[in-house]
């Protein structure tokens, strides 16, 4: 606890904010990649501690937010089948599909269970041999090793009634997609500390060099984030574009090798559709051929991705960092966590939900 308190120290935070203010000579726009960082920024008011010349935009790092609606629809369709027990992390339950969400089908009698670890889904499968247990595996590199472990064990134990609906995504291809967009205005990134704890940061070095953007691997506490911003702005002011590691207490350059090995054992890199970002080649993970028998799409039918990405709200623009949540006319009025129009309002890591929960004071005081 002492350690955590240190990273929430008001004195340290304010002195970092002052150092940033003294150093900055012109406007810079940084993106924090991870939704957890977005929440800390808005919850602690970190963006308001910064000089007006440094602006933060919120990245696509909310796994629930970027999962295509067709996967949610597929999960709902399967959950409605009597033989299936659908296991998911709690966040997915409120994500709106084309017609309702998993919570609504649960209320109609579907067997939808919230698990805290994918291994819990294995336990459920063993306890219900006559039912089909399907785990909805979404997330970035952070959750991939544990999900891989569940698949690995299921195969080892010969569990016949366990499968996974996989929509895993990877951070580096998303950064490239954002930087490749003609409308891009991001000049530096705070990379997600948890993702890099698993993957390390070697794969970010070519991105920093090719696009000439500084990338700072950053933690989640207020002092971490301010230090990440400080390091990033310092690079920008000096004209440097390197990968730096603010979160050294958790992240090593090569990452967690056993976790990566487990991921490689079970998953294969695949093209993925991202909600808000569109199709990105080699940007996700699917089950490797050797684990194909655990693939829910093979067992119960493919997810059909529609050609058109229709969004009735601006969550795509928010996920690309092109709009702030408060720039959406529906924000806080027609769109609230109770009645979300888009995913960024649903997930606890979504930028709109963060602004709604913590940031309305500033919106109201502006108007």
């Amino acid at each position, binding site marked *: 606890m002492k350690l955590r308190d240190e990273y929430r120290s008001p004195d340290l935070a304010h002195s970092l904010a002052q150092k940033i203010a003294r150093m900055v000579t012109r406007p810079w726009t940084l993106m924090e990649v991870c939704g957890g960082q977005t929440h800390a920024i808005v*919850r602690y008011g*970190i963006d308001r501690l910064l000089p007006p010349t440094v602006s933060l935009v919120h990245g696509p790092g909310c796994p629930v937010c970027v999962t295509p609606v067709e996967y949610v629809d597929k999960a709902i369709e399967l959950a409605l089948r009597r033989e299936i027990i659908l296991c998911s992390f709690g966040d997915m339950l409120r994500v709106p599909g084309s017609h309702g969400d998993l919570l609504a089908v649960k209320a109609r009698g579907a067997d939808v269970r919230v698990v*805290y670890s994918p291994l819990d889904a294995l336990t459920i499968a063993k306890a219900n041999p006559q039912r089909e247990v399907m785990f909805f595996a979404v997330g970035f590199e952070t959750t991939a090793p544990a999900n891989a472990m569940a698949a690995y064990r299921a195969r080892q134990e010969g569990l016949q009634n366990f499968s996974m609906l996989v929509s895993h995504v990877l951070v580096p291809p998303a950064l490239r997609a954002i930087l490749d967009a003609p409308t891009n205005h991001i000049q530096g990134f705070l990379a997600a500390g948890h993702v890099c704890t698993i993957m390390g940061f070697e794969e970010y070095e070519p991105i920093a060099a090719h696009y000439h953007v500084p990338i700072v691997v950053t933690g989640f506490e207020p002092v971490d984030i301010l230090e990440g911003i400080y390091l990033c702005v310092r690079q920008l002011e000096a004209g440097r574009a390197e990968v730096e590691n603010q979160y050294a207490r958790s992240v090593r350059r090569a990452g967690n090798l056993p976790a990566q090995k487990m991921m490689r054992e079970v998953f294969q890199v695949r093209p993925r559709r991202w909600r808000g970002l569109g199709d990105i080649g080699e940007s996700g993970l699917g089950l490797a051929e050797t684990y194909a028998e655990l693939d829910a799409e093979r067992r119960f039918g493919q997810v059909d991705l529609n050609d058109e990405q229709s969004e009735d709200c601006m969550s795509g623009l928010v996920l690309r960092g092109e709009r702030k949540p408060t720039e959406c006319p529906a924000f806080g009025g027609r769109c609230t966590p109770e009645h979300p129009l888009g995913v960024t309002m649903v997930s606890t890591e979504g930028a709109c939900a963060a602004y709604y929960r*913590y940031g*309305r004071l500033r919106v109201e005081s502006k108007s």
Partner: protein
Amino acid sequence: MKGIGTFSCPVPASSDETVQLAHGGGGRAMARLMDTVIRPAFDDPELDCRHDGAVLPIGGPVAFTTDSYVVRPLFFPGGNIGTLAVNGTVNDLAMCGARPLYLSVSFILEEGLPIETLRRVAGSMRDAARAAGVRLVTGDTKVVDHGKADGMFVNTTGIGQVLAPAPIGPAHVQADDVVLLSGDIGRHGMAVMAARENLGFETVIESDCAPLVDPVLALVEAGIELHCLRDLTRGGLASALVEIAETAGRSITIEETAISVRPDVGAACELLGLDPLHVANEGRFIAIVAPRDARRALEILRAREATKGAVAIGVAGGGPAGQVSCRGPLGMERVIDMLSGEQLPRIC
């Protein structure tokens, strides 16, 4: 053990071990359940009268409340559905500035529930009632089919004698009133969650489930000008404050650093992405008092075991109506909202 000693005819299983539908049928089995489990546990002369209801002397203004308890699992660290059913209703009466006097108890039991479970719950209810100084004077028992009640549901209804000299409630909150919080928050919700989901934290988080009669009546007796009392159950501190601010048409500003969360509770919340401000409690309350009485009220609360961690966490203001804001550790303010959706169903 095998052999002739264990040979038995295919007679129905003994109805003394598990609850059967007949236990709710109004016949012999039900009478036996009352005589062997419920009445001995509650041990009150009113119940021994076997009348259709209790006849009670009550004078002056009365506080009256009811609540149903559906917590899952039935037993959790720091309490069970029975302690919850007594303390929950007792605390609702205390929040009216009343001394709880009588409770009714209704059980909805599921066929197949071990009688021993019922006995343990009833025993806990008796102990909790004694600790809170309240009598269990009337009740009802129904039995439903297996799979229809998750073991048991309990309803308690309570009557208390109002002792507070002036009305207490959100509408009476005034600008500059001080918000006092009776102790650390978040324990009950996390205790039930850890027990239900088998989360396997290294420390056992115990529910804070406790009666709040004594500290509340101490405030009343000391003549503290109490404007509003609220126990912080479902929705936690945040939802209670927002509801009060909205009803009162006032704003409330609180200091996050004044609010205490035990390290194990804080760590569990962080792990699960929950805000302790939204997590349920069963032995915590806020008292919104006139500013001149705030210090004295704190001294009274801190002198009592159940409320020794009491602190002033904020003040009420003139507006904007319904807005609760919280100054965080870095000194920046943010808006606090009610919990949206369900954080964790069936915690009480």
